[in-house]
């Protein structure tokens, strides 16, 4: 019977230590804080949303980004990257029987986006990365939209380690962009660091599959859509700015690019996004965003 008592004790202990948490007020009390600051620099987080116009659940990713912007404002920069099979144009995807003829004609895929899609191993959509940092709760680099807000808040709570500024000049007549990216490290470090500069566009009114609608396709506003890279248009990887052992006091860098904006893009809704990342693990240290004009 001693053994029986031991088992009983074991079971009782298990019950006690596995108590249930009843939540009567689900909402967090108080506002959120973010944008860790140091020397007047605000930490800005990059959220990459991998999506496609044939992806039935991807509008939920866009909604999550809207909520995150409401929570954290401009401390978060979102890029929606159309890539993978769901992003193929209609004829290439094999337009479903019940869809309107000639719908989904646009190919929103980009060379950098396609490269990242393969490099980071996207396997389902929508999935996203926050600063390309693994989720501390499950070590996943690619996370569902329900995880993005938590990850953004965790990243924003960290002190900024770098500053990044974008200075554009844009000629509307020739649609030529000259942009200078400058920055510096806020602490001593070592490694190889790169910047990548891209264009994103808001308010693109085009087709999208949405499984919460009947019928499950519509036309709606695609926002923060990756259009292309300003620095190296045919690559997802950026420009090296710092390497080796780096003293913060001697870490200033500047890079300039000239880029002719595609005539099919609405330059009233274009933004320049630049981010500084560690070339070893691709993790992002700082990001910045300004309007094209």
């Amino acid at each position, binding site marked *: 019977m001693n053994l029986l008592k031991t088992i009983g004790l074991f079971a009782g202990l*298990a019950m006690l230590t596995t*108590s249930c948490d009843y939540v009567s007020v689900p909402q967090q009390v108080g506002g959120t804080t973010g944008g860790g600051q140091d020397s007047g620099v605000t930490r800005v987080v990059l959220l990459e949303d991998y999506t496609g116009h044939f992806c039935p659940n991807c509008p939920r990713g866009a909604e999550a980004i809207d909520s995150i912007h409401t929570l954290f404002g401009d401390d978060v920069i979102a890029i929606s990257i159309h890539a993978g099979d769901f992003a193929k144009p209609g004829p290439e995807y094999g337009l479903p029987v019940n869809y309107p003829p000639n719908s989904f004609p646009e190919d929103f895929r980009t060379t950098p986006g396609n490269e990242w899609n393969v490099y980071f191993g996207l396997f389902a959509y929508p999935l996203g990365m926050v600063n390309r940092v693994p989720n*501390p*709760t499950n*070590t996943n680099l690619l996370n569902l939209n329900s995880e993005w807000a938590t990850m953004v808040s965790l990243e924003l709570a960290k002190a900024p380690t770098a500053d990044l500024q974008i200075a554009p000049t844009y000629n509307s007549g020739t649609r030529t962009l000259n942009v200078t990216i400058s920055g510096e490290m806020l602490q001593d470090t070592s490694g190889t660091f790169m910047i990548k500069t891209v264009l994103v566009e808001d308010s693109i009114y085009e087709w999208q599959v949405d499984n919460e609608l009947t019928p499950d396709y519509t036309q709606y506003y695609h926002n923060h859509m990756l259009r292309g890279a300003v620095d190296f248009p045919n690559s997802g990887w950026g420009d090296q700015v710092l390497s080796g052992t780096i003293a913060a006091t001697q870490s200033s860098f500047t890079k300039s690019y000239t880029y002719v904006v595609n005539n099919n893009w609405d330059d009233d809704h274009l933004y320049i996004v630049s981010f500084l990342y560690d070339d070893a693990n691709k993790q992002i240290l700082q990001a910045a965003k300004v309007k094209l004009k």
Partner: protein
Amino acid sequence: MKKSLYLSLLGVAMLTTAFAQDLSKGRISGNFEIDAQYYNPDSAIGAPAVPEKALMNGWGNINYVNGKFSAGVRYESYLNVMQGYDPRNKGTGLPYRFASYNNEDLEITVGSFYEQFGTGLTLRAYEDRGLLYDNALDGVRARFKVRDGLYLKGLWGKQRTFFTTSPGIVRGFDGEINLNEFFANAFDSCKTTVILGGSFVSKYQADQDPSLVLPENVGVSAGRFNIIRGKINFSGEYAYKINDPSTTNGFIYKPGEAIFTSLVYSQKGLGIALSAKRIDNMSYRSDRSATLTAAMINYLPALTRQHTYPLAAFYPYATQPNGEVGWQADIGYKFKKGTKFGGKYGTDIAVNYSAAYGLDTTNLNDENGRRFGYSAAYFSTGEEFFQDINVEISKKISKKLKGTLLYSNIRYNKNVIEGKSGYPIIASHIAVVDIIYRITDDVALRTDLEHLYATEDHGSWAVALVELTMAPHWFVAGIDQYNYGNEHVDERIHYFSTQVGYTRGTNRIALGYGKQRAGIFCVGGVCRFVPASNGFTLVITSSF
């Protein structure tokens, strides 16, 4: 004192005892399987170019048993994982390894293990290697037979998700009492067997959400019964889950519940099974952000017939964990030899009916309040999810010839089951004629002709399969699935595949070539595109 220390010393004792035993007296067994495919791009069916050209899924189990001690490992290698499977399986490793010792009715297992409490409504850790589904627990488990009729189980661990474990910790306890065995004297002359059981499972996952207060400890409890008398077996289980906001349920805080009941009558030549269930918000995972089939702690059975014929299995049902009501009736009858319908060898007939509906819900619009999401009526149903009415007749016609006829009428809600919207219910009629003709004692020819009629989705399909078996070593098979009824003429494609296999003892090698159609797989808020494929396949299996 000696016994009271038993548990705490058991881990050490188990290992020292094992090593103290003569290893040569133990028995080693195992099995091995490798599936590989070479992929050809095929623009006609949309099969993409695969950078690796060829992909492979392989694994091998090695188990050792020596008296009361057993241990085992499974090596798995997916380089890279074949198309159609979750690519997160990519990699190699030893994700499954265990050691177990059973002494004086107490069995302790450390490492990986599978387990089920009751029907699985609270916990079921299991594997299906063909689907690469594996939610084994990694931790410790104790099973104890207290005395005749009283059985206890306890476990503590983390769940496998691909080559890692999910972030949540799972703790569980299950008890079962067989009253007839436990009170042997009192129930000695009782013809009714009564078994009662209960289980409690809790998971822990930290909360770091910036906008919601998420419960870190979420428990599920269940009670069950099983009454057996003669030819009748009546069983049921009820489970209740506290607030468990997750990606699957849209982060609502409504408690979940599930009820399952089954009544079976069985006698020689006749079997009747009636079962029903109601599920409301019962997705239960050890990672609240997991989707698809990852990190599922419990199991919600689908009360539908699992068809094996390709076209009958074309529109399969999957349990909807957020809410459904379902029932099934299954009747099997054998007409005896020498009767009008039985003929010379007898005739088997099986009739099956199953249906699943959504819950009758009312939206509460309380996102900024307690976030229960909806309320559900108990005795009414909502949207139709699925229905299958099928009749199968199997008959041996002569010593050389036997056949099976199947008719199935399936109604399939693509919007719910595949996570889409805007599609009508797909109403399909499927007919199957399966004939096996034994040419000689060692050679048999099987012909399977199938037809699926539908006006929705991809339209109608026809299938022809021919399989020649030359016992004991060889088989050759070819199958053509033709989507002749597709509304788009250029998509009326033949998906042809063929396979040849060689078996010797417990070894089997099969080589094939063929095409597989594309599909979309959506579960729990994310979608995965399973591309079409065209290429050679190789399957090798072996056991010892």
